């Protein structure tokens, strides 16, 4: 495993408004990309300022490349010179684009001569060659952010901090810049913290993900784990789990848990008529625990039960539910199908499948999910 370039332990910062940031433990491994996702106002940008030593924490430890950062201003300045940051706003100075790109190099007393190749690569990749001698005020928001990215990347930082660099850009420019930026990040392979509230961006670029909410890290882990095994309801909702089903573990055998679903209209404690969900995996859970089952819509397969009611018998999936289509919604090239199976279930399927199966609101369907695709966590 790569060594850590950054480690944060028990970092705390309280603001006059009462908002508090507390980071128990967070690490960034060398040459890996950590994506911090979370809703607006969750403290992501403040955390970036704390990491870049632009905000002073109330307490806690930040270790950069194995050395703990002290209170000394000269130490902080020295570490800051090994990091570069791109904020949500491009924050360009009132000098030419070319001078803006070289400003960091000049301030860090570095020469462009050894970086000619990188400079050429960046201005070509970010498509800013024709902008070099213009004043930033005459550029669009997207162009300005391209310049800000070039200015940060030319420094070849040991840690690159990208604080929602695509957030203030209009949609078409945003997609183009996203592709260009992610391609550069792949090429240069630097230790990076990328902050975003867009989980699709996180999916595309992250090695590891930290989910932040209300000043705290709710979950960290490798990308696949956070998306498929959310630690709690907030993370599950934030990473796009459409169906979160409340229930109780009624049995457990061979690491397969039987969860009896709590119905919305539950009045008595009887469970015999309640649907059951089978989930594999989570060893921290035992019989009798109240749990949430998280089912990702892309893991749900829909069947036309009217044509073949026994279709599920030939499937290896442990979970097969029957229900009625409640609604069908367009979500780009896919359709979102909402089904009432005694609980709410959501599936994403192609337009083609919707037409082929003749799906419409009110139609009886079956839905199956593998036990290994259902993640359960304690409530």
């Amino acid at each position, binding site marked *: 495993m790569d060594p850590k370039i950054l480690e944060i332990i028990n970092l705390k910062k309280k603001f006059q408004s009462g908002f508090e940031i507390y980071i128990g433990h967070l690490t960034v491994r060398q040459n890996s990309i950590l994506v911090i996702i979370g809703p607006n106002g969750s403290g992501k940008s403040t955390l970036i300022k704390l990491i870049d030593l632009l905000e002073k924490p109330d307490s806690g430890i930040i270790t950069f490349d194995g050395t703990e950062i002290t209170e000394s201003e000269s130490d902080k300045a020295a570490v800051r*010179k090994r*990091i570069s940051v791109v904020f949500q706003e491009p924050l360009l*100075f*009132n000098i030419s684009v070319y001078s803006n790109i070289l400003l*960091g190099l000049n*301030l860090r007393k570095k020469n462009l001569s050894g970086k000619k190749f990188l400079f050429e690569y960046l201005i070509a990749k970010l498509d800013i060659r024709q902008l070099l001698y213009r004043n930033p005020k005459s550029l669009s928001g997207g162009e300005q952010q391209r310049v800000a990215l070039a200015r940060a990347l030319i420094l070849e930082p040991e840690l690159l901090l990208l604080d929602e660099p695509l957030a203030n850009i209009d949609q078409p420019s945003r997609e183009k810049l996203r592709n260009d930026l992610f391609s550069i990040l792949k090429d240069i392979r630097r230790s990076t913290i990328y902050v975003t509230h867009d989980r699709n961006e996180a999916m595309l670029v992250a090695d590891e993900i930290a989910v932040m909410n209300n000043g705290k890290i709710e979950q960290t882990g490798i990308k696949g784990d956070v998306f498929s095994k959310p630690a709690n309801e907030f993370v599950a909702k934030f990473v796009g789990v459409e169906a979160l089903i409340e229930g109780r573990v009624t049995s457990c055998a061979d690491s397969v848990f039987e969860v009896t679903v709590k119905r919305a209209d539950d009045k008595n404690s009887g469970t015999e008529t309640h649907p059951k969900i089978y989930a594999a995996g989570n060893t921290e859970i035992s019989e009798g625990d109240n749990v949430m089952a998280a089912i990702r819509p892309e893991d749900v397969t829909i069947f036309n039960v009217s044509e073949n009611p026994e279709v599920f018998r030939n499937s290896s999936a442990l979970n097969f539910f029957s229900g009625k289509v409640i609604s069908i919604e367009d979500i780009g090239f896919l359709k979102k199908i909402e089904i009432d199976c005694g609980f709410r279930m959501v599936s994403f399927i192609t337009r083609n499948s919707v037409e082929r199966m003749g799906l419409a609101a009110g139609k009886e369907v079956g839905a199956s999910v593998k036990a290994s695709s259902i993640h359960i966590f304690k409530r």
Partner: protein
Amino acid sequence: MQLIWEGIKQSFILIFSGNREVLDIILLTLKVSGFAVIISMLMGIPAGLAIGLNNFRGKKFIVSLINTGMGLPPVAAGLFVSVFLWRSSPLGFLHLMYTPTAMIVAQVLIATPIISGVTLAAVAQINPKLKLQALSLGANRTQVLWIMVKEAKLPTLAAVMAGFGGVISEVGAVMMVGGNIKGQTRVLTTATVQMVRMGEMPMAFALVIILLVLAFAANIVLTLIQQRDNPTWIQKFWR
């Protein structure tokens, strides 16, 4: 109208005939106001930046003081300087009263609040996140200040213009601490007052016209520096 026309004619004659007295007055005016503005710039710009870019307890009070100072009546400035430089005053031993140095001190007192006040207002308009960006790029505190001055270049030059305009045209303070002594502390404004008192109206007009030309020339130079990024036809012509 006849009076103005006579004044214009007189001013040309006075300048181009090489009248020693008038040339001395012009040079002393430029020297006193020039030094005063340079000293005020050196104090007022960093002070305006430091106050504008930082938040600290008592900031509002200091800003209020500066704003009050921007409207300081020249006679009040003259009185303060006199109180300190008068022969029996604490700094009387320096024998600066009725010297160009005393006039410079009085004008510094007038121009510094103007320059720092306008600078302060100018940097307050700069996006505060630019300071963070400069720091994150590796700037130290001095470099941050310099970058901020460049960001506020246009309004800062406006501050210098306002300061220069304030001192070159004032009469109360320089009259009080300079004494309008012929050949020693007489500047354009005090000489104008003297000419009006003596009923020498064409001469007074001539001095005022010279004063206006000097103020205009100084402001043209500053405007050209200020708008160097957007060359005007006159700059292109000079290039």
